[in-house]
């Protein structure tokens, strides 16, 4: 079971990243649990400076930008 976390305060970029992550997981056939992390201290505990950020199984895969859906798929596949 893959644990996917979206770090961010909830603005549109975070929404987009989450949508991509969900689609990517579905397309890759990965069973995943999604969590939104909005708490500042928790966000920083991942040593992330810029949101939105994508954390997969506790590893920060990307931070500070919204990658393309293809890139999200690649990042998820790496951790599968």
């Amino acid at each position, binding site marked *: 079971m893959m644990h996917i976390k979206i770090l961010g305060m909830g603005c549109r970029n975070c929404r987009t990243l989450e949508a991509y992550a969900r689609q990517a997981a579905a397309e890759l056939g990965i069973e995943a649990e999604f969590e939104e992390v909005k708490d500042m201290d928790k966000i920083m505990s991942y*040593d992330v400076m810029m949101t939105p950020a994508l954390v997969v199984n506790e590893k920060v895969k990307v931070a500070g930008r919204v990658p393309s859906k293809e890139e999200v798929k690649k990042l998820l596949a790496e951790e599968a």
Partner: protein
Amino acid sequence: MRILEGGIAELGEYLSAHVLTCLVPAFFIAGAIAALLSSGAVLKYFGPQANKYLAYGVASVSGAILAVCSCTVLPLFAGIYKKGAGLGPAIAFLYSGPAINVLAIVLTARAIGLKMGLARTLGAIFFSLIIGLIMAALFAGEEEKRDRTTNPAMFGGTEDTRPGSQLAIFFGLLIAILLFGTAKIPFWDKVAVLISLVTAVALAVSRWFKEGEFQAWMQETWKYVRMIFPVLLVGVFIAGALKVILPPEWISRFVGGNSLSANLLASLFGALMYFSTLTEVPIVKALTDLSMGQGPALALLLAGPALSLPNMLAIRNIMGTKKTAVYVSLVVVMATLAGMLFGAVA
């Protein structure tokens, strides 16, 4: 009915060649900043071991580069404060993020006036520095004692391999397009100059841009347009409607002239009220059309974008009530003073 007309009339003013010839290039510049200027290159100035003077200097102007999404400002602020260069530079960055914004400055200069645009820019840079320094001084004792597990690694980031001269030339060309587009020169001369400038940009892109960078630039530009332009139009419409609804006597009674109370009121209003990116400009313009003084107008522009009630609450979560209260007070006081100064000399 007149309200509708008022809104539409205001929209007409903004959707004119006058405003669009500078907004359009400005969006491209903002997009280029987002796409080309690597945040890594700037972030390293805010690390815990960074030179303090540089940290302040860079913080006071870099808001535009680092803060793409307004919700990015807060985590960055928290990071610099808790794990990086500390309270002072973090505050300078926190203020400058929303305040130093290419689009806002260009629109202010165009829609309200060059003097106001200049005053706003200089004021913003100055404020970031001063407020950051004051807060660092006020809370110096606490900073020492606070357990800061700083993390230099967070401020590494990816270095930009492109030579600075290329960036300077490229942005110089974009800015030239902006300035020439709005200059008072004969029409066909302007067309000739613009065509040559755009060709130069195209050359720069084909020679200097790496794979995918042009697309990234276009995408970032479009993202900004999509995010900001519709809301701006709504703001303009509302401002136009307000001009019809609000009696000028009211406005001049509270924020007319250049008194301390006028500036203070404008400042407080700006601090509490939330302004979506760029909407502060049509609103301030409408108020000045309704006889708000120049001083209070500047005060509003300096306190408005940087603060709002929801924003204050979020900041409070990061640095606590006392520091937040000091920060807000400093912004309001300085905006008031800057307004009074500007109102006196403008």
